[in-house]
């Protein structure tokens, strides 16, 4: 199993979540975060904004579904045809075990 953590624009959050649900990945956890990327934030003259609001979407899935979920996120988190700076990043990490609290059993 893998955990996909996608940092996306807050205004793209709803459409990404909707498309994820449509593609069969209904379960997700969302946290509002602030951060900066490679551009070191946004500069307007002397003023630097380096705490840009983003949404962090966490989804845990089977490894075989990785390409499918990446395709969905990459397609719907973009602004414009070729994407723009600040569209976000996707991190993928390994998961050893998963437990469901309601049943107490291991597994997704």
């Amino acid at each position: 199993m893998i955990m996909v953590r996608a940092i996306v624009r807050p205004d793209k959050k709803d459409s990404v979540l909707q498309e994820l649900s449509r593609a069969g990945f209904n379960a997700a956890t969302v946290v509002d975060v602030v951060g900066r990327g490679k551009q070191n934030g946004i500069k307007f003259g002397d003023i630097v904004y380096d705490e840009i609001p983003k949404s962090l979407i966490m989804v845990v899935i089977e490894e075989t579904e990785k390409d499918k979920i990446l395709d969905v996120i990459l397609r719907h988190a973009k602004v414009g045809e070729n994407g723009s700076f600040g569209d976000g990043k996707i991190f993928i990490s390994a998961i050893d075990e998963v437990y469901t609290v309601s049943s107490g059993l291991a597994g997704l």
Partner: protein
Amino acid sequence: MKEIIAVIRMNKVGPTKKALVEAGVAGFTALKAIGRGKVVENIEIIADRKKQLLAKTNPEDPKAEQVATEFLDGRGLFPCRMFTILVHDEQVKTIVQAIIKVNKTEHKVGDGKIFILPLVDAVRVRTNEHGDAAI
């Protein structure tokens, strides 16, 4: 070293904190989050609670039924609490069981998930200790 990420109900935060301390966890981080789970396919599980919810709403509101269903069957997002706990390998089992024990409800769905991730390294800022000593 392992990282345990537990997503649980908002109203179970108090008991969970207590259980974690009793299970011997040194520290943890808690965040507010919103989340949803698997779509509930068996409608009978949520039928009772749906009736209770609808009894509290305005019967003339056309959206009430849809909102109540989405809230219960996992299509809508609802607030939850995300715990991040760093533990030693041998503690994982006891802590997972402790979290499950206090968070289980009679509702059968929506109690949350627990993820266990491998951890490469941890550093204590104060002393610059690495690895297991830092936890």
